[in-house]
């Protein structure tokens, strides 16, 4: 079923907002899970288009943000080695560890490279047989199939000078952790579209039933977010708690089976630490025993590195929907995208960085958004 025909049409946006206003009888707190959705909401002011009483809070779905500081320090320890070519996606390079970022290691002479795809590491390993190529395997379920293929192909082809530093996390356990918290405020979720393109949404169904919470798998365009919000509000007002799919033009209940199969053959589920949040049981992946020779943490003996995060940062509470960026005294003052103190400021998809980038630390921007909202929203 197609819910919207013209996703960018202002009239449609108005109609959706009017419908939310018509059916809404009480305030609701809804969390968008995915960092791409957060970015889109803040850039387009979607939260200000919604009727008063519908509050969007920003979830943990930015993989760069939630990569723990100690993993970044481990990456640095490996990248400094003269025998290593350290590869990463570009957005991880700017994230500061305890002492500088990966760019600073490059300027000190380390061989640090940005790659487009994990498969590029296989090419680099073949071209540099005297070097050890290490890939920083960060991401949610969307990225896991790519990293799984790198390791699977390396093993199959006998390429032994490549390994991955795994910091893979999964969305459903983070939603469960939010719902189990005694401070939880979230009553409904906009689920992550491209994560579910891989995983489908079957695994969200028991969680929705157990916690009696609506979950609507949603795209990242402004009209997707409005439509997903309407579907969540409708469920809440009708007392239903189901998994629905707003993004059916991209994904179905089963997801991408070949990708799931390879991920399951390379990775197993493990406890993972989340920056700003701490350890969440069974919330990510580690390499299976059969692939232990491709585990950079073992190869370079960096397992013991353990780093603590600055205490002033409230990103853990922002990631769980308890606080908003401007509730933090450091936001926009001592904490900025150039000098981030914690998770939600380190990447453009983090709530604090998005608020900062689109001027929400400025009084004038807030007044502008409030004026837009008082005009009845969608233009």
């Amino acid at each position, binding site marked *: 079923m197609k819910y919207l025909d013209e*996703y*960018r049409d202002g009239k449609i946006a108005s109609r959706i907002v009017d419908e939310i206003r018509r059916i809404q009888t009480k305030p609701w707190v809804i969390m968008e899970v*995915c*960092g*791409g959705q957060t*970015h*889109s909401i803040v*850039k387009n002011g979607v939260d200000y288009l919604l009727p008063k009483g519908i509050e969007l809070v920003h979830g943990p*779905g*930015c*993989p*760069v943000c939630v990569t723990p500081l100690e993993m970044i320090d481990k990456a640095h320890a490996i990248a400094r080695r003269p025998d290593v070519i350290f590869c990463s*996606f*570009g*957005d991880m390079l700017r994230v500061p560890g305890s002492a500088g970022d990966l760019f600073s290691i490059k300027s000190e002479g380390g061989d640090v490279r*940005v*790659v*487009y*795809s*994990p*498969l*590029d590491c296989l*090419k*680099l390993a*073949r*071209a540099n047989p005297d070097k050890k190529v290490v890939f920083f395997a*960060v*991401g*949610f379920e*969307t*990225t896991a*199939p*790519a990293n799984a*293929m790198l390791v699977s*192909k390396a093993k*199959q*082809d006998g390429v032994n000078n490549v390994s991955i530093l795994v910091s893979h996390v999964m969305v459903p356990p983070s939603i469960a952790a939010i719902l189990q918290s005694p401070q939880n405020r979230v009553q409904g979720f906009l689920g*992550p579209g*491209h*994560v579910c*393109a*891989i995983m489908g949404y079957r695994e969200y169904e028991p969680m929705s039933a157990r916690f009696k919470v609506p979950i609507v798998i949603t795209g*990242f*365009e402004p009209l997707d977010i409005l439509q997903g919000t309407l579907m969540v509000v409708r469920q809440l007002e009708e007392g239903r708690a189901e998994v629905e799919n707003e993004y059916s*033009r*991209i*994904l179905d209940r089963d997801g*991408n089976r*070949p*990708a799931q199969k*390879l991920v399951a053959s390379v990775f197993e589920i493990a406890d993972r630490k989340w920056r700003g949040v701490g350890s969440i049981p069974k919330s990510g992946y580690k390499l299976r025993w059969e692939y232990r020779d491709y585990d950079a943490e073992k190869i370079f003996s960096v397992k013991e590195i353990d780093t603590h995060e600055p205490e002033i940062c409230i990103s853990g509470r922002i990631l769980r929907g308890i606080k908003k960026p401007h509730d933090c005294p450091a936001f926009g003052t001592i904490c900025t995208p150039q000098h981030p103190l914690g998770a939600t400021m380190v*990447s*453009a*998809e983090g709530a604090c960085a998005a608020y900062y980038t689109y001027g929400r630390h400025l009084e004038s921007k807030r007044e502008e958004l409030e004026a837009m909202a008082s005009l009845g929203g969608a233009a």
Partner: protein
Amino acid sequence: MCLAIPGKVTETFTKGGMRMGRVQFGGVSREACLEYVPETQTGDYVLVHVGFAISRVNEEEARRTYQALLELNQLTELDVPEVVEPGAFGQRGRA
């Protein structure tokens, strides 16, 4: 980082035992692994995440999603040059 970028498959081939394709994103072309969407044919539109096609989409959806990503400044990963294998001639990157 979890967003996938839509593009048009301009050729398909097998390399190193993997089903691969060339995918055109606006003015940029990239190699993409098609193992996860094995039914993909030349001329199809696919969503590509970090060099892997993960889903097929129709042309209209591809166009709209590409535009939305452009507005969100989420296409910068396509600026990263492709790694060229030893012995390969030239590089078919940014047009």
